């Protein structure tokens, strides 16, 4: 069945309209400021975990090590990081009695926790993990309620003096998604199912903690560790 020249013209007119609309939408998406997202269930590569076992602060010779599995969007983790950690840091970590290891354990119900963990990982690339980590926890109430936390984290990155070009490239690439996933899987393998969870000497402690409880724990373990 042949189509009249008029029919073909109408088709080309519709075709051009659809093409322009599609190009316009793609152009808009390319032009608007990129909203970063970090994929979940990413395939973990050997390079994601090679030589990396969490973010550590404290002396390598400290007699006690505590590993914390935490989620940046978890309210208990936030209060622990902002209210209890300063005391723990002052009295235990800085005095060489405790080494602290932070592991990401992003919970599925928190939409920005993986993005926050990735933001901190990108800060770590420039040697400022703990600064970004602290900012993210301190600002939890601001970004957790926002529709897009990425610009807030970028603001923290700028405030702590990160090279924003490197930070943006790091975030866009989602290069640490596998590392975050691996950390979460390791936590699950160890039996972590909530946050914050502390692992001390191979035992898991779940729930709310205060600095006094941690100090007592370290005091009781330090003599054992020294033997």
């Amino acid at each position, binding site marked *: 069945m042949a*189509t009249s020249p008029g029919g073909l013209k109408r088709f080309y007119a*519709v075709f051009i309209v659809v*093409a322009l609309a*599609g190009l316009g939408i793609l152009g808009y998406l390319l032009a608007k400021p*990129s*909203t*970063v*997202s970090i994929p979940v*269930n*990413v395939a973990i590569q050997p390079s994601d975990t090679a030589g990396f076992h969490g973010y550590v602060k404290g002396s390598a010779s400290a007699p006690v090590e505590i590993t914390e599995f935490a989620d940046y969007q978890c309210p208990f983790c936030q209060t622990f990081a902002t209210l209890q950690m300063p005391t723990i840091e002052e009295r235990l970590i800085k005095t060489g009695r405790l080494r602290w290891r932070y592991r990401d354990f992003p919970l599925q119900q928190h939409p920005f926790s993986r993005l926050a963990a990735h933001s901190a990982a990108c800060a770590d690339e420039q040697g400022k993990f703990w600064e970004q980590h602290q900012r993210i926890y301190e600002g939890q109430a601001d970004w957790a309620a926002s529709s897009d936390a990425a610009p807030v984290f970028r603001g923290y990155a700028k405030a702590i003096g990160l090279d924003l070009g490197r930070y943006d490239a790091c975030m866009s690439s989602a290069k640490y998604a596998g590392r975050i996933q691996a950390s979460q899987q390791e936590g699950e393998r160890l039996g972590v199912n909530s946050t914050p969870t502390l692992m001390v000497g191979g035992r898991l402690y779940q729930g709310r903690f205060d600095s006094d409880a941690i100090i007592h724990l370290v005091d009781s373990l330090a003599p054992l560790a020294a033997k």
Partner: protein
Amino acid sequence: MKFRMGAALLSLLGLFVAAYLYLYKIGRIGTLACGTGGCETVQASEWSRFHGVEVALIGVLGYAALLVVSLISLQPQLAGRRWPAAILAALAGGGVGFTAYLTYLELFVIHAICRWCVTSATIIIAILVVALFDFRAATDRQAT
């Protein structure tokens, strides 16, 4: 010709869907409008590459080929010719086969469904259907 017009429009839509997924995959678009999160799971999986090539890029190239063939087949001197319809059907048939493999991976291996992949699957099946109708119409014309 109306089937070929339909194939051209569907190929154009498929091209935009594949381009959208590819631009996301190479980091030029921050998030996918997906809703379920399944799109990111699928895109981040090891099966988002086929023999080292991004599946979304294969989609872009496939739909681009379908678009070119369907637009060429609209030339008045090719009206009623069977071979353009045969090429369209062969290309779309290959696309449907590949889509079936990807859908199997989503359902039974990755355990996540990407809505944009479902959209693409619907488009490629529709292209195959119109290409087969076109082929049958061209065959009928040659027989009479």
